[in-house]
């Protein structure tokens, strides 16, 4: 028995499988395994300025949203695929869609979430293209997707061309955000500064990025931004730093493979951010998301932070922030953000309904709802909204919101930030 035992033990040592419970991902049995996967790798930039960045599925490269089928399809059905965050979907489901159905009772609207699944709406776009080639039903009518991020499909003429005739309200939309005729922006959100007006007197509020950096250094521990991969309010702060060292010209950054000349300037941005690193809250403790930053601001642990406009306006409305929290945008170049775009594949079985829905979103009432209920920014010109609303938001109105191309640019941003700014290891001389 002893020998057999020894052989068994040796075998176990050699066998990969001869080890014990609960290594990584699971805690000790009997404690339950509770491990949410990391947040989605889709950055909160052009496609979906995610108001919150909740932990969703880690996107495995092989999981495909195109496998998701809507409950029904046809000329009275509108299948809309969205990777928006839950508050946007709630808004659509509880407010917009019922109002739409009241006006257009002949339709049925299916809002399908593809958040965190593969490449989300992009996979659905691929499926629509495949359907186009095989003359079948793409099972999709509206995609929350900016067609300019996928030039190949645009060239293949997949999308319905949008103009003032088939989407009448398009003429009211801010010109500079109409980046193409294959997608329609309908709401926006940008990152701003939120500050506690009881701790920051009006004359000290910074209005340029340089002033902000100076303020941060002069008030150690009073400013915070979140980790860029966990929340758009943090990533857009980092992007703004990158813009600062590249001539404040966002148009230099084009979708696709990162330009090496621009990448070479990233270390300057890391230097800027590393400079203020020890002045950040709790000696450089970057919270793990937009929500956590809001909490710190709300309970007075910091006096200023970079935040999403829609989240903050909602926070003020719901009493999460005390009324002494004020919002302000930078004057020289605003913090980035983004607009949300909708596209319609031309082989959709209900193009008419899809266009009517998009047009409906651009109605003045619904644009006001974007501001009031979502805390977002309208896609139509501010001047078309009620005067009292314009007055309420004067300090944050801009006519345009710069946005970041995402994709591989973002990967570089994440890695660069984690390795150079957040780390406590001394890098070589900067």
């Amino acid at each position, binding site marked *: *028995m002893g020998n057999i035992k020894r052989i068994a033990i040796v075998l176990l040592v050699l066998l990969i499988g001869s080890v014990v419970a609960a290594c990584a991902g699971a805690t000790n049995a009997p404690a339950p395994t509770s491990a949410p996967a990391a947040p989605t790798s889709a950055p909160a930039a052009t496609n979906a300025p995610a108001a919150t960045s909740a932990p969703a599925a880690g996107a495995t490269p092989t999981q495909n949203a195109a496998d998701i089928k809507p409950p029904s399809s046809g000329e009275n059905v509108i299948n809309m695929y969205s990777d928006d965050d839950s508050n946007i979907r709630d808004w659509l489901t509880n407010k917009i869609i019922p109002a739409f159905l009241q006006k257009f009772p002949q339709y049925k609207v299916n809002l399908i979430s593809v958040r965190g699944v593969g490449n989300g709406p992009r996979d659905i776009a691929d499926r629509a293209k495949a359907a186009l080639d095989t003359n079948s039903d793409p099972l999709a009518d509206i995609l929350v997707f900016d067609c300019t991020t996928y030039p190949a499909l645009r060239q293949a003429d997949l999308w319905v061309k949008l103009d003032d005739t088939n989407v009448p309200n398009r003429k009211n939309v801010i010109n500079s955000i109409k980046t193409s005729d294959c997608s329609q922006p309908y709401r926006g959100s940008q990152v701003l500064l939120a500050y506690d007006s009881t701790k920051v007197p009006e004359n000290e509020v910074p209005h340029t990025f340089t002033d902000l950096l100076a303020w941060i250094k002069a008030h150690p521990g009073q400013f915070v931004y979140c980790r860029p991969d966990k929340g758009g309010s943090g990533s857009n702060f980092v992007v703004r730093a990158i813009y600062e060292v590249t001539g404040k010209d966002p148009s230099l950054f084009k979708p696709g493979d990162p330009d090496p000349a621009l990448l070479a300037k990233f270390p300057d941005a890391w230097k800027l951010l590393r400079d203020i690193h020890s002045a950040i809250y709790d000696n450089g403790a970057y919270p793990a998301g937009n929500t956590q930053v809001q909490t710190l601001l709300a309970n007075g642990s910091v006096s200023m932070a970079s935040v999403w406009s829609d989240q903050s306006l909602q926070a003020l409305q719901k009493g999460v922030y005390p009324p002494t929290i004020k919002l302000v945008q930078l004057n020289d170049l605003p913090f980035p953000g983004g607009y949300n775009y909708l596209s319609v594949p031309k082989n959709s079985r209900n193009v008419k309904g899809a266009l009517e829905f998009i047009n409906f979103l651009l109605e003045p009432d619904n644009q006001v709802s974007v501001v009031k209920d979502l805390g977002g920014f309208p896609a139509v010109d501010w001047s078309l909204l009620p005067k009292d609303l314009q007055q309420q938001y004067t300090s944050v109105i801009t006519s345009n919101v710069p946005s970041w191309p995402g994709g591989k640019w973002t990967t570089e941003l994440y890695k660069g930030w984690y390795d150079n700014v957040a780390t406590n290891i001394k890098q070589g001389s900067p």
Partner: protein
Amino acid sequence: METAQLTTARPAPAVPARRDWSALFAYLLISPPLLVLTLLIFIPAAQAVIETLSTTDAATGQTTLTLQNYIAFFQDPILVANLEFTIQITIATVALLFVIGFPLALYLRFSKSRIAAAVQVLALFPLFVPGVILSFALIEFLGSHGMFDTMLNLIGIQGYRTPYQHLQGIVIALVWENIPFTVLILTAGLRQVEDAVVESARDVGANFWQIFTRILLPLSKRSAMIVLCLNIIGVFGAFTIPYLLGPAQPMTMGVSMQQTFNRYEDRTGALTQAVITFLFCAVVGVLYVRTITQPREGQR
């Protein structure tokens, strides 16, 4: 109530008697779970390991066996710092678990008062609380300007530094989470020391410390070993709590591999980190296996 007697007191026969046809039948019985295990764990794991041990030349498509990925890991100061961070957390957590768990186990073993019953309920309370809820609760309780901070303020203590987003926060949460398991196993191990043994030691005048070091500790080595091994493995690979409560950098291995895969889109790097984590746990695992395959004290 004392089902413990039935499952631990009677010795199981060393080797069951029959072989022959029953071996075939036995294989039949174990094949369903074994199949699931092989298809969904062993094969993917083997694939992952092979992937980390090879590199494919993009130009020629030729695959060669190499340790390059592992060398790269150890050459990256950020990743090595993550590994060190994980080791630090593991040592601190397991040490604290013993320091807290042993006195609790001793108390529960030898006291039968109602207070002891209450202590036991409390000690087992964290057993079924998921990590996400725990993290949320600790953030609200231990966070800056949270409940604990407020309580300290009320009695005049200023300057509270929150453990949230520091190593301390992770350790506190991991200790909280693993106390029930630790106390359970240690108590069970102590239960195997008969009351009579302790009584007779006291009868001859031994004091508490002597009883502890000369009788209890040696006789509960097995359960202490089990606690040590399983806790090390569980803590080393933990993901949820370090993810929710830890700092941006350094990260624990569990968080780092997710980050590498999801954010830096470096699949092979992530798998390499997974294999390294696995190897660390494997060493401890072998220790565990050797401990439990030894015969129990007083049996055979």
